[in-house]
């Protein structure tokens, strides 16, 4: 991370906006494209007024056609531009799956390095916003298996900026996931100017000795809240914010687990085949005899997504209280 002198308080929306703005200012190869990113300035107003400042050639309101939003961005990237494609909601990334998994992820590999694909795909994901079945999903587990991609899911404004800068600077395709519930909810100090946080590095956001909790996105904040609660009960929980999902940070997880000897993985996405599976498997491979309790995954139930009706959303989502309970059980195991 570069040394920066000053900082200001931003929420996650503002952190994305500021980073994109600075990227547009810094390099005219940077192009933003997506649905309603122009005059509307994106549905969360992230790129508001960009079109006036940078022009419609650099801030492209695309037709509603996700496969080509990504596909055209891949072509731009292959020919020297630095596109940042937006998928309006993560739920609508499925039509672009072919271009992300079949094309972007394989451009460098299949051409033996002749062509590259420096592309960022940003998209808001996650629930707790009454988004119902199709404006709430988590998508990371549908992509994290794919060699050639990188996936980032920051939780804090300063990480949003540092990781988005790293994604934009990265010479390979990065899927950048923004939890929409954190957009305005989460505020924090953000350094001024350009700095990057390396992809693939987790962050210990709270130290503790009796249990390691690994999470990312919105749930990092709830896990922190739960861990504070446990602290007040005299129980010591370490919270690791994954930040990057591919690559994931083995060293940080293992050194935490080797210290606490217990691992609880928490994610909003459903459990079967989710990110937690790989984390658990990695620890079971590398640190089995350091474990004093079975690894536990606290995840969403295995249903397609949360329903629109409040009780359905509440049932799908976890809560700091539920997380605290899971932590208590693990610590006391």
């Amino acid at each position: 991370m570069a040394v920066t002198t000053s900082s200001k308080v931003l929420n996650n929306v503002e952190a994305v906006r500021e980073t994109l703005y600075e990227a547009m200012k810094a390099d005219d190869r940077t192009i933003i494209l997506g649905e309603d990113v122009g005059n509307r300035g994106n549905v969360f107003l992230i790129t508001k007024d960009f079109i006036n400042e940078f022009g419609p050639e650099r801030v492209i309101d695309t037709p509603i056609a996700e496969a080509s939003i990504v596909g055209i961005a891949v072509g731009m990237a292959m020919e020297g531009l630095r596109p940042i494609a937006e998928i309006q909601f993560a739920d609508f990334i499925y039509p672009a799956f072919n271009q992300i998994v079949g094309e972007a992820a394989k451009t460098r590999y299949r051409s033996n390095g002749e062509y590259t694909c420096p592309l960022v795909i940003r998209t808001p994901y996650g629930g707790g916003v009454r988004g119902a079945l199709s404006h709430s999903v988590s998508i990371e587990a549908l992509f994290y298996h794919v060699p050639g991609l990188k996936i980032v899911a920051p939780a804090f404004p300063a990480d949003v900026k540092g990781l988005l800068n790293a994604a934009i600077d990265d010479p390979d395709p990065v899927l950048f996931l923004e939890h929409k519930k954190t957009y305005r909810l989460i505020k924090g100090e953000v350094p001024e100017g350009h700095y990057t946080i390396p992809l693939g590095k987790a962050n210990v956001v709270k130290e503790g000795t009796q249990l390691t909790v690994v999470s990312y996105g919105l749930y990092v904040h709830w896990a922190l809240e739960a861990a504070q609660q446990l602290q007040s009960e005299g129980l010591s929980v370490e919270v690791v914010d994954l930040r990057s999902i591919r690559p994931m940070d083995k060293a940080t997880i293992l050194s935490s687990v080797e210290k606490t000897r217990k691992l609880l993985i928490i994610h909003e996405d459903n459990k079967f085949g989710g990110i937690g599976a790989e984390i658990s498997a990695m620890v079971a491979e590398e640190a089995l005899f350091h474990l004093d309790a079975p690894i536990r995954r606290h995840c969403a139930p295995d249903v397609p997504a949360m329903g629109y009706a409040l009780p359905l959303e509440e049932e799908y989502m976890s809560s700091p209280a539920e997380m605290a309970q899971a932590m208590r059980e693990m610590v006391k195991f």
Partner: protein
Amino acid sequence: MAKTETKATSLERHGLTDEQLRQMFRNMLMQRQLDNRGFQLNRQGKVPFALGSEGHEALQAGAAMAFHRGKDILAPYYRDLGLALGIGLTPYEILLSLFARAADHNGGRQFPNHYSSKAAGLMSFSSILAAHIPHAVGAAYAIKYRKETERAVLVTCGDGTTSEGEWHESMNFAAIHKLPLVMLVENNEWAISTPLDKQMAQPEIWKRAAGYGMPGKRFNGFDPIATYGAVNEALERARSGGGPTLLEGTCYRYLAHSTDDNDMTYRTKEEVTEHRKDDPVPQFERSLLDARVMSIADVDAMKKDVLRETNDATDRAEAMPYPAASDLYTHLYEGAWQPWQ
């Protein structure tokens, strides 16, 4: 309303009876009332989200009138309140969806306006634009395969949705197999904030029909009778083995995209006001009065009745319970499958 004093004008009515014209008008009034109610409930904090079809009333009332209940299949999109009403869904059912109540067809799972009713022939759809269009094609294939003449599928989408690849694939397949399908595009000039000229270079969507080898037609979607005429003709052709049609109805979206949108970020009040001159609801009211299909008193009574029914449906729906937390787990598969058995 001096006009009502003049002689009755004759109406091009494509064979529609007075009663059908009144039904269409009532549908239009009901759409406007329910739109209003949704936005109102949203402002009151009673529902987190609502979405209006204002500007599409004539198009949807006219198209629905061509639908044969108990026979045809409708594969609509989220802006099709008037189509849902017109094929038989009740305001109460609409409000159950708005309030996300357990008794909603979707059990409160989906966003409002994502109607579905197997009984009414209304196919379930998701929020993913264009994804329902191949489903409509598959349903039309089933109809043709089973040699069920007198049946057809009416599928709708917005202008913006025609940009999706699945739209193209569906049109092409329907044409190859001469399926009983009518693709009705509701062209309201906007896709959220994206105007038509950023969505396509050539703005007459119906002209794409020739490329697929099917008939195409454009009509004034502010005119419910013209709409009925076009949709009826296309559905009749579909039902009798004549294959698919691409229809484009022109209209306008008067409201913001949804309660989450502020359309003043991308268009001017003047533009909207300009289009208000063509508002299909008062326009059709005038036509019916002019043609002596209804009197002013009839219209007033109908408006009152629509308001009464809306109020009644609102109260009844609001009083119904939410789904239970345990309902999150039902209807995933037939039977109780878990990923780890």
